[in-house]
């Protein structure tokens, strides 16, 4: 079935003009009509470059030298322009907010058709049809800031589907979504593919989340090469994922820890159809009983206490409704909840960016409401999600020293303090580098260092690991735990469930401006009501423990995490 092939790479290689080494080597890959393929790999493995070759941004926007052959829809892709390719390949970018071009949902969906000069009357009909397909009819005339992240992504999908494309390409579709919305996005992609029969390529390093719906094939990449190309079940039988720095589905790892040999016949890639024999279930149960119960060492000394905080924005949005919560000295805590649940507002009130209309906020007996933003920052440091939003100096040393200089500290005192902080953050070797030479993860460290240098007792981080692959995620989080062990209290605002489970013993869950839970992360993720209200997702460990007849899914999760941390060290 030669003519079924929609994409074919033959001995393909690519080198960016600005780089000394090729980014892709020797790629051989064919994708057929109606196939659903997951391309996984750590950052820098070449998966985004591969995607850019498919949608034409290479070589049209990012020039470089290609070798070998790349055919899309039977045509030589390197000779096609972006416009020609956009009729065959629809790309949904990672940043669903950034790719929203129109002033309203309807205009954004219509964008490609407008560029094609389709008469206005037809535009309206087509937009209606597509909006129905991706289920955004109700918000057609809304502006981007009036709709949710999940809806934005649906609009992004609608915007490329108007071209009747044969290939849909999703570049890290889960990066900016909360777990429940991510689950819905994967279901929608599956649904659209079944209805339209086009080929779907999903680029993502969060394997378990994509496998929520079956895929036909997984391609694993590393160092610009294809390491594996085949069915997902066979792949999960190997140790390929650990070796390539991709997180395996948790239930698969748990089975492996229990000594269960994974075989293709067990259908390990699709949890609802996972087959476990009685013997294997017994193996899991006995592993569970044999694992020591992890101790809980949570400090009880209250450091920061919020009582009945109430806050309403000027526009009338009642964001906090009687929040009472405490943060203990030396703990590592996560704050979770949907967008708009009040967690960011809470952190703004804590940092003094906004003033609560009611309630009290005390820290070690000091009433925080009497302190200015600047004075509060001596006690509570706030690190924004995007490091580029914080860095204002060109030199690393100056950036870290900024807060001290603003506070009038003498230069003699600044130097040792900055150098000490740079050492803690592993940035000392780079102290004389310009900030622009650093990677994203290193920039993140610079921003953490620039807060840490002020010696706050608490540091509050907004989504510290958003968009990071397993390696960088581990790097950032290990660094934060190290700080935590040195006595800094760390509060994380996050959507990431792994992060919650692995690093923070306690989680506070926000929903509609209220605290709906304040308990251990394992307990939160194993209670279906909280999971639903906070737009989280039950862990697959919950389902595995149920399937094996283990009553306490929560304890199972806790023991698994303890074991996993040991293994990964």
């Amino acid at each position: 079935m030669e003519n079924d092939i929609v994409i074919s790479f033959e001995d393909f290689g690519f080198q960016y003009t600005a780089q000394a080494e090729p980014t892709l080597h020797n790629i051989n890959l064919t994708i057929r009509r109606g196939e659903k393929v997951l391309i996984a790999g750590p950052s820098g493995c070449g998966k985004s470059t591969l995607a850019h070759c498919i949608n034409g941004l290479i070589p049209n926007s990012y020039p470089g030298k290609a070798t070998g052959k790349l055919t899309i829809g039977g045509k030589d892709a390197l000779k096609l322009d972006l416009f020609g390719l956009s009729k065959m390949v629809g790309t949904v970018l990672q940043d669903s907010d950034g790719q929203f071009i129109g002033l309203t949902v309807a205009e954004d969906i219509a964008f490609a058709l407008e560029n094609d000069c389709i008469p206005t009357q037809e535009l309206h009909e087509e937009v209606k049809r597509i909006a129905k397909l991706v289920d955004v009819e109700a918000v057609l005339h809304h502006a981007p800031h009036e709709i949710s992240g999940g809806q934005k992504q649906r609009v992004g999908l609608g915007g490329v589907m108007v071209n009747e494309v044969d290939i849909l390409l999703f570049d890290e579709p889960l990066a900016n979504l909360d777990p429940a919305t991510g689950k819905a996005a994967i279901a929608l992609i599956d649904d659209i593919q079944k209805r339209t029969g086009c080929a779907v390529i999903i680029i993502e390093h969060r394997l378990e989340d994509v496998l929520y719906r079956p895929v036909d094939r997984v391609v694993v990449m590393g160092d610009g090469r294809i390491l594996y190309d085949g069915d997902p079940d066979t792949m999960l039988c190997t140790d390929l994922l650990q070796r390539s720095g991709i997180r395996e589905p948790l239930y698969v790892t748990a089975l492996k820890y229990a000594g269960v040999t994974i075989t293709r016949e067990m259908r390990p890639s699709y949890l609802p159809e996972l087959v476990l024999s009685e013997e294997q279930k017994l193996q899991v149960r006995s592993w569970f009983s044999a694992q020591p119960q992890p101790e809980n060492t949570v400090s009880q000394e209250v450091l920061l206490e919020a009582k009945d905080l109430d806050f309403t924005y000027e526009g009338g949005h009642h964001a906090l409704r009687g929040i009472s919560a405490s943060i203990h000295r030396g703990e590592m805590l996560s704050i979770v909840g949907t967008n708009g649940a009040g967690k960011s507002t809470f952190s703004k009130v804590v940092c003094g960016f906004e003033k609560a209309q009611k309630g009290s906020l005390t820290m070690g007996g000091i009433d925080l409401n009497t302190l200015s933003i600047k004075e509060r920052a001596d006690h509570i440091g706030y690190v924004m999600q995007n490091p580029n939003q914080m860095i204002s100096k060109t030199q690393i040393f100056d950036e870290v020293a900024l807060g001290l200089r603003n506070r009038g500290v003498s230069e003699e005192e600044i130097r040792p303090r900055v150098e000490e902080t740079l050492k803690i953050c592993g940035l000392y070797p780079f102290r004389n580098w310009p900030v622009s030479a650093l990677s994203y993860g290193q920039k993140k460290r610079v921003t953490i260092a620039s807060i840490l240098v002020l010696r706050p007792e608490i540091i509050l981080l907004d989504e510290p690991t958003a968009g990071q692959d397993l390696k960088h995620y581990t790097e950032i989080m290990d660094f934060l735990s190290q700080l935590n062990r040195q006595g800094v209290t760390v509060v994380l605002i996050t959507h990431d469930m792994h992060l919650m489970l692995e690093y923070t013993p306690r989680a506070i869950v926000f929903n509609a401006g209220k605290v709906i839970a304040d308990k251990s992360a394992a307990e939160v993720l194993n209670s279906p009501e909280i999971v639903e209200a906070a737009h989280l997702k039950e862990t697959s460990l919950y389902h595995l423990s149920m399937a094996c007849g283990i009553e306490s899914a929560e304890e199972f999760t806790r023991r698994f995490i303890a074991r996993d941390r040991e293994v990964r060290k």
Partner: protein
Amino acid sequence: MINLFNYIDRLSPIHRLTGASKLVCLVAWSIAAMTSFYTPLLVALTIASFALFRLARLRVKDISFMLGMMVVYILMNNLLIFLFSPGHGAQIYGTQTVLFKIAGPYTVTAEQLFYHLNVILKNACTVPIVLLFVCTTNPSEFAASLNRIGVSYRISYAVALALRYIPDIQREYHDIALAQQARGTEMSSKASLVHRLKAASAILIPLILSSMERIETISNAMELRGFGKKDKRSWYSARKFSAMDFLAMGVCILLVLVSLGLTMANGSRYYNPFI
């Protein structure tokens, strides 16, 4: 947050006009009002502009901020005219009817007051029309209209994009400013000018860097969906001209002719009640 392009969605005959015809009307109306000092015409236009404002179902409260700015502008304008040329009225109208003296060259004459009346009338008949245009034209339709009257669609779309991103950038600016304040950057008016300039750069650099990221994403997204390939594009929010549009444009162009005609018939731009 103050919205610059304060589109207010209501149902009215003015809202129903297309952006293109409103733009033509705005330009024509302004020419008619700006080129003439013929007082009866200005009075008529002022009355008409307030009537149109009512017709658009706009409330004073909707536009109180912009209206306030305009009033301040008109007052400043008149004050400066009087300060710099208190004899301008007498010069124009050729007579000098002294009402009372203040000091030095500052003498209040009937001619000067009449001249000021004309200046105020000119503002009073154009300001409501400008506000009317701003408040009743959907920004995307405005972009479509610009394109229709001959502006390149790339430039028209840039206008629409700017409007799309202004709220995002305002929000981002606000967040960055707060984070900088936490690190001790002084923003209040207490700080000296040098300090404030430094503070501004502390916000602008991160703002520019993160805007660059945004620009890369948006330009990729636009290219991937075929922007800029063809010489023409269509617009989702474009609307067809109706009879009302032609009528409105006809009336406004007629106004320009009337205004020019009066100037010629009168032999001067000024209506002179003093001779």
